[in-house]
């Protein structure tokens, strides 16, 4: 039996779940939709499984989950739900084929059986238990007080570079909050700034949207003015009552660092060893892109192994033991941190540990289990670590040092250079011009009596702008992984905006074309173009 220690402070684990809008009804199947399907299978369903088990075991955990509006929209989209089931069944079929193929390789066959069970369980969770509605699963855990759900900007627009137009920034925030509210019924108290991109003054738009707190990277608070007395271990009040919490560098490094982070342990599953790239082309062709371009299938048989050694076969039991060990290490280190901080601070310290949700399960296969172990250990309070959400912390501590955070992001180099450089800077003149055109058009029509067709076209133009603004496109252009797709998304959305702008201006709206665009870009059904107005 564990002994409870008095709490020395708080640990707030925050997962940010986001994917760009990858929905393509104009194709019978579309490769990039797999980003969503892989994330559902490997990340979101396993995380829901963690929450369900913790609830069943009466574990008193608390976790913050940020769901981006694009992800919210895709998770409840009928077309994608149907296509996901098709994807999952094809994975199941492949796992079954693998059981036969590996019949003379017991070690591999054991893993093939494991994958079959994994996909079967995913199918059960998705189809039977939650009937395709994963948002309902998150909502359930929110209602029991275990999850604090928050959201982000409408399409994850990178706000420091949209700030040429305050209207564009405000529209991203307000549409994001409205989308969350439409699905969950309440205004979120917290807001995940896309890429943790903050600039001084952003708190005003957040306050107007009813937001109480947001997150920045460590240097956003450490370089705040005036200097924060408690460093990154207490929020600061931006001057208008909106609080900024900082990422803790230590807990971040333990999970993120490529060199010393847990996911790189030799016992964990190797992400880059996938049968989609390893098996005979004829055999694997039904499960890869266009039956010829090798892609990940989700079936991976090897562990990280380390160095330049040949990859060894994955051992799930050893990996789980290592995850338990890493969870113990993580919680112990937080305890040591809190002991030290508690002695020097005028209030209970809070360690904020934010991560991309997709790290857990997708990149780091054992991540959800590690998280489960961390939540079980921390909830016992045998380490003097108490789990909390940032919203709860603000309710406990009502006054905070007033300071202005410094402009910052959590990306490479800590500022905006990942989202504006020689690979992607061409997008900003185009984006800013479209935003300007939209703002002017909304202003021009504000006193006109509009037909329902004109209103539909204006709303669709607002959707096109939002979709073009996603930070993901600039990110992908820089990272170099799916450049053609990202480039096409931006140009398509801006072309659609230009088409609608031209049609509206000339009052020659083709309903058939408009309807096609509404089908293809069906996000934000309740959008109101009138909000794209500086005076609204």
């Amino acid at each position, binding site marked *: 039996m564990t002994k409870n220690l008095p709490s020395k402070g708080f640990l707030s684990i925050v997962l940010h779940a*986001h*994917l760009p809008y990858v929905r393509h*009804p*104009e*194709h019978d199947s579309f490769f*990039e939709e797999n980003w969503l399907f*892989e*994330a559902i299978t490997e990340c979101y369903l396993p995380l829901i499984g963690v929450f369900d088990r913790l609830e069943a075991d009466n574990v008193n955990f608390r976790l913050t989950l940020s769901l981006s509006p694009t992800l919210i929209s895709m998770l409840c989209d009928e077309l994608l739900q149907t296509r996901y089931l098709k994807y999952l069944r094809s994975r199941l079929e492949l796992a079954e084929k693998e059981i036969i193929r590996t019949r003379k390789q017991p070690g591999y066959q054991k893993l093939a059986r494991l994958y079959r069970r994994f996909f079967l369980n995913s199918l059960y969770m998705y189809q039977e238990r939650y009937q395709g509605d994963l948002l309902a699963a998150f909502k359930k855990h929110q209602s029991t007080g275990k999850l604090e759900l928050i959201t982000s900007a409408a399409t994850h627009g990178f706000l420091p*570079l949209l700030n*040429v137009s305050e209207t564009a920034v405000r529209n991203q925030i307000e549409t994001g909050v409205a989308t969350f509210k439409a699905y969950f019924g309440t205004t979120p108290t917290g807001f995940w700034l896309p*890429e943790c991109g903050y*600039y*001084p003054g952003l708190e005003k738009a957040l306050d107007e949207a009813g937001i109480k707190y947001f997150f920045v*990277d460590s*240097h956003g608070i*450490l*370089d705040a003015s005036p200097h924060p007395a408690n460093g990154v271990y207490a929020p600061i009040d931006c001057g208008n009552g909106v609080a900024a919490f900082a*990422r803790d*560098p230590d807990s*971040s*490094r333990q999970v*993120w660092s*490529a060199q010393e982070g847990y996911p790189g342990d030799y016992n964990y599953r190797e992400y880059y060893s996938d049968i989609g790239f390893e098996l005979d082309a004829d055999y694997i062709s039904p499960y890869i892109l266009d039956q010829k371009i090798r892609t990940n299938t989700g079936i991976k048989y090897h562990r990280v192994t380390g160095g330049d050694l040949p990859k060894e076969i994955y051992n799930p039991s050893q990996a789980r033991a290592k995850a338990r060990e890493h969870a113990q290490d993580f919680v112990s280190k937080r305890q040591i941190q809190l002991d030290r901080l508690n002695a020097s601070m005028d209030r209970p310290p809070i360690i904020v540990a934010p991560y991309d949700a*997709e790290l857990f399960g997708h*990149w780091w296969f054992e991540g959800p289990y590690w998280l489960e172990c961390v939540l079980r250990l921390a909830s016992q309070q045998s380490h003097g670590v108490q789990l909390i959400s940032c919203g709860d912390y603000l309710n406990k501590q009502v006054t905070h040092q007033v300071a202005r955070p*410094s*402009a*910052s992001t*959590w*990306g*490479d180099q*800590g*500022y905006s250079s*990942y989202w*504006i450089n020689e690979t992607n*800077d061409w997008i*900003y003149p185009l984006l800013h*011009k479209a935003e300007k055109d939209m703002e002017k058009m909304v202003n021009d029509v504000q006193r006109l009596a509009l037909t329902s067709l004109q209103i539909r076209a204006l709303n669709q133009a607002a959707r096109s702008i939002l979709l073009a603004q996603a930070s*993901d496109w600039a*990110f*992908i252009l820089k*990272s170099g992984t*799916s450049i053609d797709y*990202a480039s096409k998304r*931006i*140009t*398509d959305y801006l*072309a*659609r*905006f*230009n*088409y609608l702008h031209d049609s509206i201006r000339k009052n020659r709206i083709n*309903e*058939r*074309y408009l*309807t*096609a*665009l*509404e*089908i293809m870009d069906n996000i934000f059904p309740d959008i109101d173009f009138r909000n794209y107005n500086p005076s609204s």
Partner: protein
Amino acid sequence: MAFLHSGSNSKINLSAKQMLEISQEISRDFTPCFFNQKLTLVEKDRFTASELLDISVEIRRNFAPKVSFSAPELTLLPVDPGHLHVYWSIAENQETVTLENECDDHLTLRIYGQPHEQSKATEIEHMFDVAIDSTDSRQQVFLPVAFAETAYSAEIGKFDVDDKFIVFAHSNIIHAPRGSAAWCQVHQNANACPSKNTSGQGISKLA
């Protein structure tokens, strides 16, 4: 069983099955619609994937985004404590015009730095010029290390023979991130700040 039309002399015989089919067809095609949305849904159902794709391709072909500003424009964007990004649009006839006393034909950026708390362009304390070496109307600007201010504005123009700066466009005012010791450390040694997520964030990792 055949049904005979009672209101006319028509001799058309209809079976029960035929009656049902006609009834269903009329219901399907002529049900009164009270809401626009219902009409829209019927319309929406009529698109095939390839029809949607055709419309998408046509719009992309005919409405591809391009930069075309009606007036000269200059926009500044913050990158990091050591860099700004700038893009501009100067009408071709304006850029190539020979000023009466033009010295050379090169565009120049004039960057103004202001103390952080000031934002009025009139309260200028520092400025420096940057020769434009870009042909695609955008360029990154390096900020001098000693230039500690964080608010910037800019002008774009040319010099005349009297060394007078002829301005074509003024920029917006931006606040570049404050340079911190941590940032300088990172730039002296890229591995010195492990708290940064050097792998970056986002979905492209899923690709």
